[in-house]
């Protein structure tokens, strides 16, 4: 198998990545319009050059604690079957080339909710890169 490139980012100290082919763009924090009554994961709507894009908070998605006050999330805009969706993350990392041989499926012991959202992990030097199951993370219907 060929090597792949991953767009990496951090949420709550975890190191995650999305295959670059699934990423439309990465942008700074945008003013958001909250949507009252929507699911808690929905942070709001952003205006991406005239296109209205839903922003989902990945911390909420993974059931992680809320982002500390005063820090602004970044938008990783991904392409999905239902159009573009922005995933809110804490911080953007590098674009990494990874060796497919270092890939491993998520361990069975991982809690079910997280397992659903993670394709697996690449064993990098000194840390693990979790690969996001993008379509599932960007959709809400459990």
């Amino acid at each position, binding site marked *: 198998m060929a090597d792949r490139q991953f767009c990496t980012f951090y949420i709550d100290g975890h190191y995650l990545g999305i295959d670059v082919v699934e990423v439309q763009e990465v942008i700074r924090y945008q*003013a*958001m*319009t*909250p*949507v*009252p*009554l*929507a*699911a808690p994961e*929905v942070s*709001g*709507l*952003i*205006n991406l050059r*005239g296109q*209205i894009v*839903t922003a*989902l908070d990945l911390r909420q998605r993974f059931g992680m604690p809320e982002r500390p006050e005063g820090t602004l999330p970044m938008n990783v805009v991904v392409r999905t079957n*239902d*159009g573009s*969706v922005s995933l809110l993350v804490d911080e953007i990392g590098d674009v990494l080339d990874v060796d497919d041989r270092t890939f491993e499926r998520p361990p069975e012991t991982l809690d079910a909710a997280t397992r659903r959202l993670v394709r697996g992990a690449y064993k990098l030097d000194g840390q693990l890169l979790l690969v996001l199951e993008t379509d599932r993370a960007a*959709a*809400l*219907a459990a």
Partner: protein
Amino acid sequence: MSELDEVVNEFVVESYENLDQLDRDLLALEDDPDDPGVLASIFRTIHTVKGTCGFLGFAKLESISHVGENLLSRLRDGELRLTPDMANALLALSDAVRAMLGEIERTGTEGDTDYSALRETLTRLNAGDAPAGEAEDERLGEMLVADDVATEEQVTEAVARQILGDERKIGQILVEEAGAPATQVAKVLERQTEARGSVADSTIRVDVRLLDNLMTLVGELVLARNQIVQLVTEQDDTTLIATSQRLSLITTELQEGAMKTRMQPIGNVWSKFPRVVRDLAAACNKAVRVEMKGEETELDKTIIESIKDPLTHLVRNAVDHGIEPREARVAMGKPAEGRLLVRAFHEGGQVNIEISDDGGGIDATKVRAKAVERGLLTADEAARMTERDLCQLIFEPGFSTADQITNVSGRGVGMDVVKTNIERIGGTVDVTTAVGEGTTFRIKIPLTLAIIPALIVTSGDERFAIPQINLLELVRIDGAEAATAIEHLHGTPVYRLRGNLLPLVHLHEHLGQVRDGERDVINIVVLRADDRTFGLVVEGISDSAEIVVKPLGNHFKGLTTYAGATILGDGRVALILDVMGLAQQANVVSETRDRSMTEATERVSEDSEETTAALLFRTPDDGRMALPLSLVDRLEEIAATSIEHTGDSEVVQYRGDILPIVRLSQVLPERRLVPRNGGDELAPDILQVVVVRNGEQRAGLVVEQILDIVRQPVALEPGARSGVVGTTVVSDRVTEVIDLPAVLSMAGLDERASVAAGV
């Protein structure tokens, strides 16, 4: 797509249109069998189909249209007179051609359905001694003779050959037998066709997708324009300001133009109704006359598409359930022939469609019994409901009052689907009925879906857009009144609006927003959902704007509070409230049984057939006057300081124009100011101005206070004074109705208008 495919495609599309026309013509012909114009039109349609499919090689289609053409040509020449049998056969022919066209569209072939029975019927009806196709060919022959392409003898001979069974065309015979030059025959043929179809040259066919695309782009442009206009307000570069105004103007025009390209007359949908009704009435042994008014009313194509089925359903229903069988009608003293009226008209940026029949009406007692039987209501609930509300139950899923399930309708699917479909495009449907007299369905739909006018309100620091179509009025309560204005009825907030209880929904509570402290101003947006009215309490009213509706993604499935989202002038996203959804969630629609308000308004409009909307205002002398709303352009508040003087008249700059100001107190002597408390308060800083339009002339009418908008019966006591049309009673008070042309002329404005018109 290959070139030939394209030709075939065009042929199919064109023929469909022609067939619709044919159906209409045939029905018209039944009323007046001798109308030569209609006969000629029918003949042309079938002839064109025949001619084109001959050219394209659809032999079967050609041969069947040929048989029909023969019959038609004899009808046209007055040799035969249209009988119901013939009409049936010709309609069947139109169906057959349609079926084959459908087959061609799908598979590219004519299919293998056997139409020999139809052919025989047509031939039998045509039984007589005149030869087939003679009339048409002679005409071509005449043209050929006139052009010296062939001699009269040659043509006569060719026609004789046809009579003897030569199946070739007359032109062909002439070319092959008499040696007439083929190119010239072709030219004459072309001219003959041209003479029939020259109207088509001024139009072109455009792919709808292209128009959709254009509309999307225009929508984006409108958004960008809105943003630019907002940005420019912070600049003081005059060139930039002028340019942005120009951009704004052009964008608006472009938007209107783009919208027009997608507009179609509603008659396109209706054209099928006479046929539907005719067949259905025949099947039910009823006689029904269809009347249509306002076929030319235009609607966006996408909307036309989505109302086609609901409308057809309503029409079928009216014939099947509404109108009684002949005998029953006669027994009740009604004319044997039922009447179905389909009417469309524009009103306030919306299209109204009415489908009314003079049939048996909906029996509320039956509905009540059925509702209880179906378990939709308890007997108790049903007993408490008014007849009007009971009638709305027919829109509930699984409801049908037809005693007998026919194959046409009455299976309990239908009315709820009609309602859902109409609501999906932001429309409303309403029914009024009187037992024994008939039923009317009233549908209101927006002109277009893509760009809609909306009111922007604020709640919890966020802005929300409310489609104007749902908006009835705005109520602002401030000062001491605010504390007591909202009352509670078993915990439900209500507001007394002109004596009627208006159920209220607090937007911030509904959205679960936190409210920072009490406010001393209450803003109520009075909205209409279904036939109910309710008030939405919002924090602030921000603006009105043209917004581009964008759908919300999958993440918001099941969230009926919003109809979509839009981008506002500052680039921020705002949610569009779905008034229907909001009302349903807040239980305003389904549970609030306090209808005094709706009923009151309904009664007014039912009492007097003809009512017009009128603006009610207070004059400086504390009197009340009314002005027909149709003459009102806008209501404005204008700062007294912005009034300028030219000569001895007052004007104000208004939207790039000069607007003459008319003070009623100066024009109407009896409306002179009554000084109160020494008169200091008589010069308010802000003037309430009603911008009126009388023909080309616009003017600003200064009034003391805008009071209300009322439905006012036209019945008037003629007025004795100049400047007053007459007096009428509005809300139990005698009110004078202003005579706008007279007032403007008294203010010396009509002369200027005529001068301007003369330039």
